[in-house]
């Protein structure tokens, strides 16, 4: 009777270690998969880019008086933006795309190819952030401003 009890205890301890190994394996897998991937900050970055553009185009609800002079060539300078990126992964300063639509006037800057990826699904697809705001001018004319911001940087975020 006592012999059986001892045998049962040994079996229990074998199971105990088996459970420990399974739990440890699961923990190692989860931690490795979580910390092995980079932090994905593209959506936050696209949101900040949208805010920056909105602040450039509208001040306290009034549209920037110079908005008529804005175009693809001077938009980055006028709004204090710089789309240069680190020289890595054959990036060629083509990781951003913005498109601003003010009363049917469209200004687009950056890598136009990224716009096509807005229809793609999956984690590799760059996030496309669309926002709208309303502004008035000094004559109380209304303007609807649509902003589309896309940040790629897939290699550093996925």
């Amino acid at each position, binding site marked *: 009777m006592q012999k059986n009890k001892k045998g049962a205890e040994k079996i229990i301890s074998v199971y105990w270690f088996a459970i420990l190994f399974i739990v440890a394996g699961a923990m190692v897998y989860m*931690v490795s998969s979580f910390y092995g991937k980079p932090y994905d900050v593209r959506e936050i970055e696209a949101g*900040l880019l949208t805010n920056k553009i909105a602040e450039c185009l509208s001040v306290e609800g009034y549209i920037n008086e110079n908005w008529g002079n804005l175009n693809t060539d001077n938009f980055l300078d006028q709004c204090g933006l710089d789309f240069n990126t680190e020289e890595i992964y054959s990036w060629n300063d083509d990781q*951003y795309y913005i498109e601003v639509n003010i009363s049917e006037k469209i200004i687009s800057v950056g890598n136009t190819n990224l716009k096509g990826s807005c229809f793609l699904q999956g984690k590799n697809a760059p996030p496309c952030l669309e926002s709208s705001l309303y502004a008035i001018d000094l004559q109380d004319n209304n303007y609807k401003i649509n902003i589309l911001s896309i940040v790629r940087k897939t290699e550093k975020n996925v």
Partner: protein
Amino acid sequence: MKNLLKKNKRGNILTENIIFIVLNIVFITILLLFLFSRTGDASVLEEKYAKQIALLIDAAEPIMTINLNMEDAIKIAEKENFPAGEIVTRTGNVITVKLREDGGYSYSFFNDVEVNANFDTITKKEYYFVISEKE
């Protein structure tokens, strides 16, 4: 003789239990060491701070000063004998965080401003970033 046998039996049970407990403790300690080494890894912190600083700059306006507590990163740099004053550097609009000689992580920001990254030599825990207009 009967008494002696009984004593030995009790001794065996105790030894088995001690070995069992010690093995468990060793196992859990190794697991915890692995978890802490992964979460506080230099490469993880380099990436985290490079991205955090780039996003802070993107959200900032000229004439702002941003203080960032980087105590954990500074401790790792000190362990690696890397100067704390050279952890954060800026080249153009790219922020690089480096905690060891053969490491480093860079991330770019889109805000076209002048940024000065400075190590706080008084607290020795923080970095502060002075944002100003580009000349």
